[in-house]
């Protein structure tokens, strides 16, 4: 099922409605790329509240989407990852390095509005190397100091601006 995308001011909101197949995820990536370009959106919220599983493929796709949107000038925040899903993801060794996360849509909007971005930002985009070594069980990381426990504001420059308009309109 194609993911509907709403436009709200400077932002796009993609609400995943059902269990996604891989094709749906790829379609979502293309749709978002298209619209961010068309509307010059500065932030994208992907709401995954209904996803029952986020596996390596979904993670890779979400990260790829965020990466690609960033190149087009939009910041991505994933909202609504459920407790059990988050737990399974980390047990699998998956993180969303470089992608913003927030509890739900409301928090996501606030996050994009810049109020909370220091709190939720994950580390900046890692190289593929980073992806592979980012597993919590990994040993022998060479870039320790780089990520040491300083406040999570590495992605300050991702700050996309503030919320302007609150009315929802269909993106298309």
């Amino acid at each position, binding site marked *: 099922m194609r993911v509907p995308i709403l436009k709200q001011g400077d932002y796009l909101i993609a609400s995943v409605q059902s269990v996604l*197949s*891989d*094709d749906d995820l790829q379609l979502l990536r293309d749709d978002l790329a298209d619209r961010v370009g068309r509307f010059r959106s500065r932030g994208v919220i992907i709401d995954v509240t209904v996803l029952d599983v986020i*596996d*390596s493929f979904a993670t890779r796709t979400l990260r790829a989407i965020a990466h690609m949107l960033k190149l087009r000038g939009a910041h991505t925040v994933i909202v609504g990852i459920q407790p059990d899903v988050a737990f*399974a993801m980390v047990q699998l060794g998956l993180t969303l390095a470089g992608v913003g996360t927030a509890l739900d849509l409301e928090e996501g909007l606030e996050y994009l509005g810049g109020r909370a971005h220091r709190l939720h930002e994950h580390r900046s985009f890692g190289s593929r190397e980073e992806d592979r070594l980012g597993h919590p069980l990994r040993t022998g990381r060479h870039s320790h100091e780089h990520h040491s426990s300083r406040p999570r504001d590495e992605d300050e420059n991702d700050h996309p601006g503030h919320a302007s308009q609150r009315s929802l309109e269909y993106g298309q």
Partner: protein
Amino acid sequence: MANESRIPIRTTADIVTARQKGRILAMELGFDGSDLTVIATAISEVARNIIDHAKSGEVIITRGNQGGKRGICVVAHDSGPGIADVEQAMQYGYSTRNGLGIGLPGAKLLMDEFNISSVAGQGTTITMRKWRH
């Protein structure tokens, strides 16, 4: 209660079916909480590998009791190209197609038992189990 589910894996939609069936069976077998999602995620990984690396195959989910332990058993089988170096494939981060290389080692972390047997040119069978606590 159905104690066995066989799901042919041919398209990516079948991956979703497989993990949903797995979740339901796990629930019937008494799993709860995050374990249900953990099992569904592991199924998702091995089913996806079938699509990605072997085109088609099947996933069989059964009640997996052994001795006094009760649990669930997931078998992912295909007759694809097989894996030449299983040890390498099990390494975290190893991928032959620019994936994260997390599927196999990750599924192993999620489950309590993980067995892989693969013959190059003949196919791959993965058997994994999780016990109820």
